[in-house]
């Protein structure tokens, strides 16, 4: 309870969000759901009252599209924002690190590839505010897919002002995992990247292995000569 009171929503009365409980014909507690936890107890449309802009953005975004048009399960407000314990006054880095975990819970491949990318390394792991977190590209609440170059370019241009269309061909989430078969172009690119990685990995290994063993046997021989001389 204390944690709730100290959160951003701490001053709201329970009924301000959970008003459906007071509606006619609704039993509370609902005997069917007794002893179960269900996020669906809460209607995400309630958030609009205080956060109209965020709500509108959410409706325009991919998550809402999946939910409304495709009638599939998709995260609503509460899934990402732990409504009862939303902390206020967090810095950009704190939010960003938390966001990486939160988005990564459902998008683990994207989280991994993001953290392998320069953006993720500097932003999430080294706490550099000027680098990009998830929503800086995908949009807060809209959560756009950036698979189309033209859409992605707009995201790139937020920071890289002079970026042109080819700039958006850069693959941030470079992994074969989770790429659909229809995305022929991305699959091709990811394969090229993989082979370059393997090729250069081998080069590094071979050169270092050769010279390390060269150095090592040299040391051995010298040590041997020195020991012999001492006798």
């Amino acid at each position: 309870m204390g944690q709730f009171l100290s959160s951003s929503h701490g001053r709201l009365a329970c009924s301000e969000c959970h008003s459906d409980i007071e509606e006619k014909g609704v039993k509370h507690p609902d005997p069917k759901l007794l002893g179960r936890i269900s996020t669906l107890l809460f209607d995400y449309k309630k958030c609009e009252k205080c956060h109209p802009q965020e709500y509108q953005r959410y409706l325009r975004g991919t998550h809402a599209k999946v939910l409304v048009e495709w009638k599939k399960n998709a995260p609503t407000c509460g899934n990402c924002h732990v409504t009862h314990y939303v902390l206020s006054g967090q810095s950009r880095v704190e939010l960003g690190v938390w966001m990486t975990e939160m988005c990564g819970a459902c998008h683990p491949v994207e989280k991994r590839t993001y953290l392998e990318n320069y953006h993720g390394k500097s932003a999430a792991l080294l706490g550099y505010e000027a680098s990009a977190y998830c929503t800086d590209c995908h949009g807060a609440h809209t959560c756009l897919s950036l698979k189309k170059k033209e859409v992605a370019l707009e995201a790139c241009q937020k920071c890289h002002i002079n970026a042109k269309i080819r700039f958006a061909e850069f693959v941030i989430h470079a992994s074969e995992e989770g790429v659909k078969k229809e995305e022929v172009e991305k699959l091709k690119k990811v394969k090229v990247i993989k082979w370059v990685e393997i090729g250069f990995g081998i080069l590094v290994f071979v050169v270092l292995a050769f010279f390390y063993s060269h150095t090592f046997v040299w040391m051995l021989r010298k040590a041997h000569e020195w020991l012999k001389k001492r006798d």
Partner: protein
Amino acid sequence: MVGKEIQTEVYWRFNVFHRFIHLVMMVTFIGLALTGLPIKYPDAFWARGLILLWGGVKGAGLVHRWCAGITFGYFVLHLLYVFYYLLVLKGKLLGPDSLVPSLKDVQDLYHHIRYFLGKGAPPQFGRFTYWEKFDYWAVFWGIAFIGGSGLVLWFPEFFSRFLPGILFNIAYTIHSDEALLAIGFVFIVHLYNAHLRAGVFPLDKSIFSGKIDAKEMMDRHPREWEDLNQHPEKKEMRRVRQDLLMLFLILAVGGFYASPSFGRGLTDEEIMEAEKKLCWKCHRQPNLNSNEGIVTSILLCMDCHGKKDVEKKVDGKPVSLSIDEKEYGKTVHRRIACIRCHDGVATSPHRTTLIECASCHGYHGEGTAHDPHRRVNCEACHHESKEVMKDPKTGRVVLKMVKDGVPIKMTSHRLADFGDKKTCEKCHFTDNLLGAPIRVLPAKSLICIGCHSSSVTLNDPVSIVSLILFIIGIGATFTFWFQGEVGDPSFSSHEKLSYIGEKAWQVIFSKKIFTLLKVFVLDILLLRRILKESVSRWTIHSLIYIPFFLRFFIGLIFLLLSSAFPMSPQVALLLDKNYPFMTFTYDLLGLCIIIGIIGAIMRRVQEKPQRAISTGQDYVVLGLIGAILLTGFLVEGMRILLTGIPVSDALASFMGYPISLLLGLFSIRWEVVYPYGWYIHAILTGALVAYLPFSKMFHILVSPLVLLIKAAGGEK
């Protein structure tokens, strides 16, 4: 057996240029590694600590890019040297002294490995062993792969214009992998092979001192020793004829480490802080339905109203607007945001609240706008409205709060297009009331730095022509010097240059640098020798030269300060042409020069017979300097008159202000004359700069040089 005497003989191994490149490479490579590694392994336990050392990712990136730039620089320098070596010095590409791999290197490697395995004696190495050759060529490899991919990642926008985006993925992989290879190679293989191996441990000094003694050569490069003994003329050339110099390696490394690319971390933090405070002060809408929002909102108001001295005038009487925060906290309203009731604050009484542009934006350098613009408010130029006026109270040029008769709203952020030079014409036109000259004058360029805090620009014809002439003069003199022959006429220019480089290196990294510092202060700054000769000559000399030197020094310091702390209001104050302390100093120094010039002319008139030879030239130079000073003061007077600076400030320019009063007596349109006066001043300066290397005045540069060289040579 080789005798002891031969064993102590010393030979050249690396010339001063090679050593210089190696030193620069060493420092930049370490810099690149220490800034790159934490980004390659950000989740390692040391990554965050290391990145903090550089002041965050941004600072590390800055140092990384500086080091990278220097890396490209030394690489190009080296290539130029190779061309020079091949084309001018007619050096050989192949042979025993070459770094080009040969069949012998493969054989050496084979025999060396056999030796490691205990199957025979080690091979006889030449001047450069196979691993040394590999080290050398590895730099080419590194520059191509790491440097090339690094460039792509440095300027992605540019490269994406003609290369596909997937290249960034590839460049990233290559940069990261090859850098790991380079670090893994240099810090283990190179360090062991070159310095730590038995017989060399702990350090092969030759790459820093350039020298190798006979014993070391016989030991490490026996084939080379053989080769030298077969060619005595070559041996003689390689022999070092002087004592070994003291090597201040630690000094060198320390010096590079303390280079100005460090310690730039703080400004960004400051900017962030300022931004937070300033933008959020007004642009944040706190959520008044939450506790936090109410508190934030109240705190915002209390920021000003919590102070004791806030007041406004009602019918001429001051009314306090101060609120005691503690008392307010006891009222029933303490949980209600001020703006719940005072909902008109954003429009009515706070309309005149000014946002300081300077808290986010730096001040302009002289290269963008002349110093008198420090009396012009940002918005006067930057707002698209053309109507400006001089604030009668402060004397500053401000934006009239009307545009075409319509009042400008406080929220108007329309900015002028500075790509269009006509923007400046909103002040700089005939009959303007602001005192702006009718022409937009070029920025004070590099040639002005002798006396003014100018910019590092070179855009106007006067500066360009005079500087070109100056450089031609200097170049001609130096070429002339290098044509001189000392004793043995067989020295080529290359040998002379290398000898000078070698000498400079030996002096800089030895105790002699302290002797040089002493000579610099006593003989060059304080003119000890002239004082010894004649007091009057010293006085006149000092009156002219010390003020010039001080003004140059001040200009240089201000240039550095303004580029290091562009946000600092203190620096901006120093650069203000009307800042009493500085304007007084400048006027005083200028007056000293004029007195010195008069003194010099009088001395020459009195002692005419003795000085007949150089008199003509002297009068030209003295006349030029005098004219520069006079026009300078006249232009200053015109500026003070035109811009109408408050008397209290203007009084400090004790030369310029009386002149401005004098000029005011004539009913001439000075704003038309001003640009001509300014240009005459500039052209005279240009003429002096261009004439300098051709006249006796060249001693300004030569005398200190001669004194230093003499001191370095050990003469007392």
